[in-house]
């Protein structure tokens, strides 16, 4: 019995520890002076998962844009990839009576209702990157993965002159960004039957660099010649590059990635490891622009689709080239 009680206590202690670790405070917004708060606005930011560098970047973009406006105060919440926790955090922010909510939801279905409830209270809601269902939100800002995939496909075709062998390293194929980046790529390539351009190897690397490296090693072993690698994210393209480099085959292959974070994809292009990367914009700065318009009483559009930028060896020094 004593042993049972002891292990029960152990379980309780561990759960408490788990809970504590999850209540880690979200990155703080700019510390406001009391007077700034009194006449200013509070914006709640609900981020679904700060475990991803891209989402860290999104929060950084929001914060950077907001710092130019001293009347804004931000409250950040990180749901750590848990829909129910994000729902609770949205409710907390509404209870704190924020003036506006920016949310990047983990998934549509579980967050549609909490978002709608905030919206019905008259609080403007800006939904970033991933959509919610229905119409009960103020503005959706997102990029178009399918379009980015299409641009990557066109560039691949152009780089190879319509002839060659392609390896596609896919993101988690149960996720819509990976499905869209795949579908768009095929549309961009526009392969006809009997085309001299073909995809000789495709694998799901689940967005993870070590997986991409393993899959690329298999692709290299199974194919004597490979001309181009298209990876659904930059870490995937980087992993593929490292695999090819360790077999002295990297200079014969072109590498294209997606996301173009400054310290990741863009840096890889600058270092000459990748041949191109397409930006998947976070929309953080745009969200603050739209937020300011709502707070001034304007009525911005319901849906804003962000363009992309391509970074290649030729244009990376100039900050890439916009594809509107």
């Amino acid at each position, binding site marked *: 019995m004593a042993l049972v009680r*002891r*292990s029960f206590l*152990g*379980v309780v*202690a*561990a759960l408490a*520890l*788990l809970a504590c*670790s999850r209540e*880690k405070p979200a990155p703080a917004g700019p510390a406001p002076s009391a007077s700034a708060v009194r006449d200013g606005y509070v914006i709640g930011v609900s981020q679904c998962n*700060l*475990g991803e*560098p891209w989402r*860290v970047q999104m929060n950084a973009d929001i914060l950077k844009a907001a710092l130019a406006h001293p009347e804004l105060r931000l409250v950040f919440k990180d749901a750590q990839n848990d829909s129910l926790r994000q729902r609770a955090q949205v409710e907390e922010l509404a209870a704190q009576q924020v003036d506006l909510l920016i949310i990047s939801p983990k998934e549509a279905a579980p967050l549609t209702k909490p978002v709608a409830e905030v919206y019905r209270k008259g609080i403007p809601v800006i939904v970033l990157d991933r959509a919610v269902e229905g119409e009960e939100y103020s503005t959706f800002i997102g990029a178009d993965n399918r379009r980015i995939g299409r641009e990557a496909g066109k560039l691949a075709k152009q780089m190879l002159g319509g002839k060659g062998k392609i390896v596609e390293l896919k993101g988690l*194929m149960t996720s819509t960004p990976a499905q869209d980046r795949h579908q768009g790529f095929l549309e961009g390539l526009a392969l006809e039957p009997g085309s001299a351009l073909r995809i000789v*190897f*495709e*694998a*799901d690397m*689940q967005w993870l*660099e*070590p997986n991409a*490296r*393993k*899959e690329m*090693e*298999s692709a*290299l*072993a*199974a194919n004597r010649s490979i001309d181009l690698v298209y990876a659904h994210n930059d870490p995937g393209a*980087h*992993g593929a590059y*490292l695999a090819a480099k*360790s*077999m002295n085959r990297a200079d014969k292959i072109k590498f294209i990635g997606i996301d173009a974070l*400054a*310290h*990741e994809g863009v*840096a890889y292009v*600058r*270092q000459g490891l990748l041949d191109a990367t397409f930006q998947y914009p976070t929309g953080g700065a745009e969200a603050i622009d739209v937020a300011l318009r709502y707070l001034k009483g304007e009525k911005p559009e319901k849906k804003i689709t962000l363009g992309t930028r391509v970074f290649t060896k030729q244009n990376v020094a100039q900050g890439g080239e916009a594809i509107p």
Partner: protein
Amino acid sequence: MNAWRALLPLLAVLLLGAVFSGDGAFFAWETHRAVLREVSVMGMLACGMTVVILAGGIDLAVGSLLALGAVGFSWFVLRHGVSVWIALPAVLALGAAAGSVTGVLVARARIPAFIASLAMMVFARGLAKHWSGGQKISTYVQTPTGFQNVALPQIFEALDARVLGGQIAVVTLLFAASALVVYVILERLRLGRYVYAVGGNYEAARLAGVPVRRVLVFSYALCGLLAALAGICQAAQETQGDPETGLGYELDAIAMVVLGGTSLAGGRGRIGLTLIGALTLGYLQKVLSLNAYSTEARLMLTGAILIAAVLFQRRSAR
């Protein structure tokens, strides 16, 4: 505990590879060299895990400690240019210290190993993220004047290189060295006999005068140290310290140990069996990857083959 029982599943997987050879790629030496490199990082985790499991415990924290090692090593060497001869022992000591904490929680506070190491798994992941600021630590460094590229330190190149005429990866040699160290401890030292005794029957070992608590703490400390070493190798292979790396690796490490035939109940098993288990899992993944099976098929096949291998071992053990 015959090695042939562990070898048969490996042979079956190799046969599978010979039949479904991915257009003959399975017969190229490069493929086998790649498998040996790919299993190395998880294999190091499995070496440490073997000692913990033999002592009757389990360590779920190895994947997080690997990330902590990768981040720590990159922080020292990439970000701050600290000498390898300081960074290397510091990171290994950190891994051993984290492991000892788990060990003390298990041995002194009598918290079940599953819970204690689960707590360490969560804590170490948090520490790795905190240390790195949530971002990968790479050769691309943010300075007040913008971004700056630093050269990849030699130690990163050296750890990801191949030696002996370019035929074997350095990480594979480190994996072999880890296994050798564990072999010497388990099979040649009195400490090893204590590990088996504690895992076989804790109470009997204690009554026989075995320093049971110290043996337990040692097993977790060694496991933590090897996880940190694996993290250093992971950082070298990724050319960066990623706080998210190694997610779920603890399960692969446990699978390698169990596939070899080491008993999860403790006290029965061998490090050599873990090596066979590591190769079985590594080759299985390689064969599925070479033939570009879909993820769905891979997951189902891996699960089915794991069960088949374990069932086979148990049957022939009777």
